[in-house]
């Protein structure tokens, strides 16, 4: 079971929980798994089978560039974050 931190605006989907546990070997699987427990969560995170534009994901403290394909281990921490760019 990995740990997933839920963004504040999505906590209405997770009964107010800021942190939940989930299963899966990739970020995509983790989201699918969570969506079973919290129906509608995936819809808030995904668009056209990808993370929504402007949304990023970090696994174990590193912002991923693989999105849903990013591998997740049972000890991992998954954080959904706003994607930010520089100048």
């Amino acid at each position: 079971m990995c740990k997933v931190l839920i963004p504040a605006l999505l906590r209405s989907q997770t009964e107010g929980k800021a942190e939940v546990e989930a299963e899966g070997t990739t970020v995509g699987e983790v989201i699918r798994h969570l969506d079973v427990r919290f129906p509608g969560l995936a819809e808030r995170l995904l668009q056209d089978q990808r993370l929504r534009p402007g949304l990023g994901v970090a696994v174990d403290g590193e912002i991923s560039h693989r999105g849903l394909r990013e591998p997740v281990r049972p000890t991992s921490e998954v954080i959904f974050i706003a994607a930010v760019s520089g100048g």
Partner: protein
Amino acid sequence: MPSLSASPDGSVAPALRVVGTRPVRPDGIDKVTGRALYGADITLPGLLTGRVLRSPLAHARIVRVDTSAARALPGLKAVVTAADLPPAPDRIEDLGEGAIDLRYLSDNLLAREKVLYHGHAIAAVAASTPEIAEQALALIRVEFEPLPPVMTASAAMKPDAPLLHAGLKTDRMGQRDAAPSNVASQLRHERGNLDDGFRRAAVVIDRRFRTETVHQGYIEPQASTAHVQADGQITIWTSTQGTFAVRSQVAEVLGLPVSRIKVVPTEIGGGFGGKISVYLEPLAVLLSRHAGFVPVRLVMSRTEVLTSTGPTSGSDLRIRIGADTSGKLVAMQAELYYEAGAYPGSPVGAAAVVSFAPYVCEAMRVDGYDVVVNRPRASAYRAPGGTNVAFAVESVIDELAESLDLDPIEMRLINAVREGDRRPDNLPLARIGYVECLQALRQSEHYRTPLTGRHRGRGVACGYWGNWGGQSSATAILNPDGSVSFNVASTDIGGSRASLAMQLAESLGIDYAQVKPRIGDTDSVSYNDVTGGSRTTFATGWAAYDLGQKLAAEMTARLAQRWEVAPESILRAGGGFASGDRRVDFAEASKLVCEDAPLMVSTTVHPKGYGAAFSVQCADVEVDPDTGKVTVLRYTIVQDAGKAVHPSYVEGQMQGGVAQGIGWALNEEYVYNEKGELLNGSLLDYRMPTACDLPMIDTIIVEVPNPGHPYGVRGVGEVNIIPPAGTLANAIHRATGVRLTALPMSPPRVLAALWEKSGYRP
């Protein structure tokens, strides 16, 4: 793609020969002799001059555009309007500057139904001379139905505010409101219990702030030349931070395959984030095609640069922070309203991360709102979004420190984030050098020297920036004389040819002078992200390092074959190769291995571990009580650079970022009238710092190696623009007792605040 990993403990090779030195940049001679070619210097046989017709109104419906009189003008070769653009794709893509809606990008190039800001492009022409082009613009008739302009976030959020985009509905992380609005999106970071936190506070400061729209202010106006050949092949010469970003944007808005487009970078006269989005390139392509496949050059005037490109968001901010009696922060709350300009996409997301990133606090909430207004579409500007919010947060932190009678550096040390602590969005920080920077400032000669004199004060502030990695590609060609031709695609805005060549030389163990860097076009180097996000010396530096390793490995393999020994038996020392009693230096080795076959290696990297940047700054100011003018007497910057590859250019980034921050803090602002017309579209009235507005800017480079890079490098370019406004606001407060809550802190504003404090009524 190679798998990249630095030594896990972040240790850096003990003896660096090249990294850390200060050689002359490879392109230096061309740039001091006037030979370097920038965007407007490109000329081609038969080149036509293009011009753009821009909206005089801030907000209006376009009823009709009549170009018939212009088309009849002798010498006029082409006219294009939005009708010549393919239908705008309704898609969101990341084309170099974060996710952008292609509809908006297209609409910003040439207005379709509405103009949304003073300066919004409506039509473009190409002619054989500039005079004819300008005459043609005057002959284009545009019929408008004026609409009331919406100029600020607060005006845009009023319930009865006119809407810029009828279909825009607030997105709250994947959920859209039912009613249309000028608020494009909301985001929130939250942890802990805010109410509990504030209840525990001994002191709470709650303030509102306003910052104005400012421009990147690069000295070279946008300039692009395009030539469409009759077979459909397109070449674009342009001054840009990212050739591949230009290629993909042009391809998307014109509906063309990327394979038809070659983008050739010219030298670039400053960008600071403002030369990522395309403005001219697609127009030049359309004009070239319509003019009969002749090249067309478009160069902006300074007024166009100011009205129609760049700026970064003005903002309304509310910051509320509580601390206990020991100075520990117990609750932090921010509301950030960022003006995106005409289309969604302000940097409020980055601002929300920057906001409280330097501080440890268990109870935190940050709300960010992206608000459209009738100003030019905001684009990136050095650490986008950071300066606004840090001005506000650092002011409040200073006020807390003062009310608790704590030294401002001590206040920050008490609450400083360290490795493993989390940003507002919960991302944990890797190894950082923030505490080291605070300590270095506290021990600096500047900080230890008391400031004396009337109307003088010293301020301190800090800033965090996350940096970026991104994708980089490079190739290295070994020449038989031992030199290495080094092709990259990262455009060089501030000396990156030097810092990259140095890393390749270091990796190969050869002299810097043996590496010949060249910046290639999009057909000669594979994909590369923009020069931006403080990523080039880090990520393209990774590519340089990796190339060196690969080239040396291939040379070793070839020598092993030639010498009939196992490759593992070949040792490397001082750039040379040795096995048993055989020993060749790098040049000899090059000659030998090139005899067999030419040798070229290439690499593509996408490194993580880019490592965050912190900057801590201190300023002494003097405030003239009669005029309100603020003079900066002394300024010191402390920054964690990880490892400064070329310390002179690191210092230059630090000084340049601070100079921009000082301009933002003290003078720069877009001034609009009530009709939404920009009143200060020139460099006389848009007042950037000159040499006599600034003192020498002292720099202290702290080097806490970034474990994510072979030489410990972390990005340095952006973070330094974040602290200056807060630093100066705090210094002004200590000088005068007045706390300014709006930028710029220009003489009239400072004077008004001084008068208000003293009860004087003019």
